[in-house]
């Protein structure tokens, strides 16, 4: 199965909906947006959005989370 054409919007919508409480998500959270897709398809798509600079990774060191680029409380504190 292929991802819907508006897959990107669906991802952004999802993030927007949750943005009141949190800015970072686990990869698995995105699976729920595309319940019929295999984990690999979703993974590749999310990683592509990172590649496009729309999303970005955040790491606890031990695990990686994903959010909108620049979002989140500590985002400003990262880097220079």
């Amino acid at each position, binding site marked *: 199965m292929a991802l819907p054409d508006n897959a990107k919007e669906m991802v952004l919508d999802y993030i927007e909906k949750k943005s009141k409480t949190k800015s970072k998500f686990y*990869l698995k959270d995105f699976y729920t947006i595309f319940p019929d897709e295999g*984990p690999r398809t979703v*993974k590749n798509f999310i990683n592509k959005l*990172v590649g496009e600079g729309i999303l970005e990774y955040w*790491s606890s*060191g031990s695990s*990686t989370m994903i959010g909108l680029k620049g979002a989140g409380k500590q985002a400003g504190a990262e880097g*220079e």
Partner: protein
Amino acid sequence: MAKHETPLLDQLESGPWPSFVSDMKLEAEVRAKNEAGIEFQIPVDVVDDLMGVLELSYVHGRTHWKHGGIVGVFGYGGGVIGRYCDQPEMFPGVAHFHTVRVAQPAGKYYKADYLRQLMDIWQMRGSGMTNMHGSTGDIIFLGTRTEQLEEIFYELTHNLNTDLGGSGSNLRTPADCIGSSRCEFSCYDTNALCHFLTNLYQDELHRPAFPYKFKFKFDGCPNGCVASIARSDMSFIGTWKDDIRIDQEAVQAYIGGEIAPNGGAFKGRDWGAFDIQKEVIDLCPTECMWMEGKELKIDNKECNRCMHCINAMPRALRVGQDTGLSILVGAKAPILDGQQMGSLLAPFVEVNPEDDYAAVTEVIESIWDWWMEEGKNRERLGELIRRAGFQKMLEVTGIKADARHVSEPRCNPYIFWKEDEVPGGWERDVKE
């Protein structure tokens, strides 16, 4: 003159063991002098400040680092660990102090020119301090600032043909024992398999694909010199199916005291003459060895390949020739459900570079598919197996249940049956 007084750390300069404090002072001094004329991209006194903050920890008995969520280079989900000092005013040189994990070569073999090139990058763009190596196996560049990360990555990939290692919810940098490159016990080429899989799974290594971290380690034999059984979600341990090769003359040489037992590992004490009965035959866990006159005999069918006899008499005994590896799964540190060692999943898997190790990758990928689907966030494979049951894993990998999977069968009778396993099913007419 040292930038910060470090009276406590100074006490770690004495004693015979290499002093990391002396070494840091050396690096601080070299930086200060900068005889090589390096264009330092981060503060020249970064090592002084590192010593300063460490001294403060020695005074307080507490760390002075805070977590940082930086991941590293664009498009990669790991390879960098972010850190900030909680006393940035006092120690501006280490206010931002991220580490970079650099992929080490299999077997941790190096040539001097390569190591120097690495240091050329690192002494310019980072603290110059390293860990050789991190616990997982990477070369660790210890401490730099965010803006250097891409530069370092660029130089590593373009000039050194070297990539970053793993961190985050990725495949982590695989690691191996020295294997057949220098070890007579090795049942497969650990370096080759480690390198092959590392490259095959670069995407998994660099971009989050998993619920959590995942580690591979490769031991050439059951001695376990890279500790894979304790430290890897998937542990590949060499083994063999046929007979231990015996050189009866060498056996006699051991008995006669001509060869030091166990490769000379016990030379530091007088343990008395080597006693093959007491030291080998009686210690064989399966009791499958005996002397028949001057001949050492092994009932190989009963041998569980513990390596003891081979370790004890390496010139007389050699591992078999029909070799392969066992795959064990689920090892991990104690957080959250207690520590786990790897549990045997595939007793014997062929190691065949000709077909790109198809037998090995098949098991890996069926495990990953399952874990990616069923694993919860931050649930390691070992935890998933415990939650879902060993049976479930057998199902998804298509491996048949076998007494070898257990050290003992279950002692509770709580066997769950599936409806289709039980004749008549579960829906019945109560009135019948």
